[in-house]
């Protein structure tokens, strides 16, 4: 039974992952060319594109999408590379790594709220310094959050993307022989950072190229962080698309569809430009290497990298702390550093809603992650038994759902699901979540699964175990820790999904993330804090369990405790 099913699992996985993306793009193209029968509109025509070009905010909106995406990627990548170059192998680095790693699972929206509460003119930092150091009794009239250039939004994205790129880099380092390269470079008199950049960076970058592209595509099309931290006069293109999707004037949906296609073109264009820049950087880099400069400003560069890394980690952690303070706050005027009084009022008031949203979130995340895990293990086991390893092209397919902007295919998918008669609600939302959860679960589990010592399996087979027996009784138990980590990754990805839940759920599926972002427009900081904290907890708890459970299960199996 299982052996007959196993060979089709990879195909099934591809369909689950790419089917919705392809279908959604198709469903976006029709209205973009004026075809929306329900509103009595029949295409094809170019009216929507003409209207899009006539929209006065277009150039600024497009520019913002590009600058926030490219800015986030350049800054996050540069900081992570300099941090690893200057500090990997040191005690400070291990400390920072431990500080940054859990931040990977903090949902983007919660991190953005925390940052906003921290750095706004009335934020915690200004409160802590006022009036003693600043003399402010009212907050200064400074445009920090939602600034027209999107700098705060870039900051919010950078602090969230740094942990992602850092973990990807650390995983890649193992395959680059970095330690020996650094020793040789050091022996030749190269500074720590310069030596690393000249010898290890080219090899590391080749390994983390796809994750970098994911950051670029994500930064260009993110909606929830842009709603919270991004400018509004006008907003980035992705936010404007979601706005048009919701306007009472039905022709605005055509506008949204045409803008969605523009967004797709922008992301593809930006990825191409990035690819070309890689070639350019490689050329320049080669010249730089040939000059033989040993590096003279490594010291300051190292200091900047460590400072930036620490600031990034602290801004998320302090942001969560200020969320906690707001969630218990009574009246809290400016410039008081702490509220007049602490109470449980906000928690009691929102307790019912929070628990309901938590249950919905957990149900969706749980089922989606389990489905992703089964498909992933099926794929990897099929690959192992039939000796078919994933090609580079296959890896691209895995990353494709993460590279196509959500705003480009989710609106179309919503329309198509309705056409198929699939009711809105939880089921379709789970399918949409699976598109984003599957790649992450697969990427998280693939390496440990493949690295498993096959000789153990041979021994088990020699003792009479069937292939299924080897999988269930030897391989999976030995891989408990990476499997639980993959589950935690999957859960946290699902918990953080905003746009798929909102659009595909038709507003009926209320998760912690959709509730928190919905509250953001109302500005009730206590309510936002309660939901933001619960959202963070829902994403973090699985990681804690993924560390704890293997330690308990293998407390008398020393060799497996660190596996």
């Amino acid at each position, binding site marked *: 039974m299982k052996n007959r099913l196993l060979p089709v699992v990879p195909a099934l996985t591809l369909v689950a992952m790419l089917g919705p993306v392809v279908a959604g793009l198709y469903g976006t193209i029709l209205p973009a060319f004026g075809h929306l029968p*329900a509103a009595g509109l029949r295409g094809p025509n170019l009216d929507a594109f003409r209207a899009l070009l006539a929209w006065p905010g277009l150039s600024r909106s497009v520019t913002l999408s590009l600058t926030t995406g490219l800015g986030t990627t350049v800054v996050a990548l540069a900081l992570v590379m300099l941090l690893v170059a200057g500090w990997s192998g040191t005690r400070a680095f291990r400390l920072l790594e431990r500080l940054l790693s859990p931040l990977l699972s903090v949902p983007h929206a919660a991190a953005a709220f925390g940052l906003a509460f921290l750095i706004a003119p009335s934020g915690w930092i200004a409160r802590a310094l006022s009036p003693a150091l600043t003399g402010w009794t009212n907050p200064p009239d400074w445009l920090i959050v939602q600034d027209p250039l999107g700098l705060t939004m870039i900051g919010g994205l950078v602090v969230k993307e740094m942990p992602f790129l850092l973990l990807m880099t650390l995983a890649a380092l193992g395959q680059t022989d970095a330690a020996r390269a650094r020793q040789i470079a050091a022996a030749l008199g190269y500074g720590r950072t310069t030596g690393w950049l000249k010898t290890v960076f080219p090899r590391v970058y080749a390994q983390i190229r796809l994750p970098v592209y994911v950051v670029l595509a994500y930064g260009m099309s993110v909606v929830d962080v842009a709603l919270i931290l991004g400018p509004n006069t006008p907003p980035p293109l992705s936010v404007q698309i979601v706005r048009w999707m919701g306007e009472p004037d039905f022709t605005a949906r055509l506008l949204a569809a045409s803008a969605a296609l523009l967004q797709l073109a922008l992301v593809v264009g930006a990825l191409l430009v990035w690819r070309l820049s890689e070639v350019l950087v490689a050329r320049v880099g080669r010249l730089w290497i040939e000059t033989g400069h040993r590096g003279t400003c490594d010291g300051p560069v190292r200091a900047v990298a460590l400072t930036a890394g620490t600031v990034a980690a602290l801004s998320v952690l302090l942001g969560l702390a200020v969320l906690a303070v707001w969630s218990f706050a009574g009246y809290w005027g*400016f410039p008081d550093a702490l509220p007049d009084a602490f109470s449980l009022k906000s928690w009691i008031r929102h307790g019912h809603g929070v628990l309901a949203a938590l249950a919905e979130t957990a149900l969706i995340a749980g089922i989606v992650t389990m489905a992703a895990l089964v498909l992933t293990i099926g794929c990897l086991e099929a690959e192992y038994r039939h000796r078919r390893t994933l090609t580079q092209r296959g890896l691209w397919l895995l990353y494709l759902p993460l590279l196509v902007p959500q705003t480009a295919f989710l609106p179309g998918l919503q329309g198509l699901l309705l056409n198929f008669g699939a009711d809105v609600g939880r089921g379709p939302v789970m399918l949409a979540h699976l598109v984003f959860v599957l790649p992450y679960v697969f990427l998280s589990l693939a390496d440990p699964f493949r690295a498993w010592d096959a000789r153990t399996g041979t021994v088990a087979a020699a003792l009479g175990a069937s292939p299924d027996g080897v999988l269930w009784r030897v391989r999976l138990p030995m891989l408990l820790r990476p499997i639980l980590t993959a589950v935690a990754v999957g859960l946290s990805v699902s918990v953080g999904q905003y746009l798929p839940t909102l659009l595909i759920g038709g507003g009926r599926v209320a998760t912690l993330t959709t509730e928190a972002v919905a509250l953001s427009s109302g500005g009730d900081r206590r309510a936002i804090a309660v939901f933001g904290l619960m959202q963070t907890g829902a994403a973090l708890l699985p990681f804690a369990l993924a560390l704890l459970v293997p330690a308990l299960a293998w407390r008398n199996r020393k060799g497996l405790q660190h596996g």
Partner: protein
Amino acid sequence: MKSLALLAALALPLAAQAQTDPADWDAVTAAAKGQTVYWNAWGGSTTTNDFIAWVGDKVKTEYGVTLEHVKLTDTADAVTRVLSEKQAGTDTGGAIDLIWINGANFAAMKEADLLFGPFAEQLPNWRYVDTEGKTVQTDFTVPVDGYESPWAMAQVVFIYDSAKMEPLGSMQAILDWSTAHPGRFTYPQPPDFLGTTFLKQVLVDTLDDPSVLQQPATDENYAQVTASLWDYLDKLTPSLWREGRAYPATGTAMFPLIADGEIDLSTSFSPGAATAAIANNELPETVRTFVLDKGTIGNASFVAIPYNAAHAEGAMIVANALLSPEAQARAQDPEILGYGTVLAMDKLDTDQRALFDALDLGVATLSPEELGTVQAEPHPSWMTRIADDWNSRYGVAQ
């Protein structure tokens, strides 16, 4: 062929009868029992969310109807949803049963035949509704025709910190004050409904004769009528909070700005909201409200039922429950919601009226007399064009 035509003729009335006739209230009550009503309503305000949850408990115990609040960031999302369903041919069993709606969203849905009804004037509690004194039968000048049922009255008030400033009597006085105190005033970014209402309020207050706004805007008169508005905003914008380079998303998003001392003056569409926010620690205790000498714009909030609602009967139960004196008095309680009632006090019996008389409107809420003249909402065509123009002038062009 003939039989097909016959079948089509038969099918049409059948489809219409899938939802119970509103006039047969016993049948409505019977059909509603056990239904789950999905009420799509703006979810950005905690007090409103709590009130909706209370209504849910009420219809659950009294009628066995379960109420689910689908929290929207924008009512237009619900309109879009119904449109998507129509596009997909989902003409029965739609996802939305009830929408908190008014103005342009209502006009759009009514015109596109996306609404169930007429039902509003068949509701048993309609007999209490103040049809003379309150604008409940037109919605932004568009005739309601029973396609939506009113549940709350809103009127523009200005919220100010009495520790920092005095009440102001006109839009011109607000401009003068803002110029003298730069960065201390703002309004929500249109197309947020309170933001567009502020623009209309400016227009109504600066025009010598605002009655022209009761007719649809025309290409001929639009530019000339709105000239005073743009002139006003050109002068006001540089003195706004953040110099008008950013705006709060909604009305309630201005509460933290007042609490933090970032601004001293803002607007609200709910006369009791300030008192409620003080009680919830969201505003300082020195906050008060005022209206303009010539009066301010007011309108009613309604609930409407989509044409394809799966649970239209349950939705009517909820609409009727919202009109009950008990629910209306609760909504008016500033500790709860602070919304104006749509009921006529002289149509209530003594016990029912006592519910309203017992209310302490609170420190920051004006009495019905103090709220003064209610000015009519302009025709929606004005708002649509003004919101678009605002966007070109101030929303994207800096």
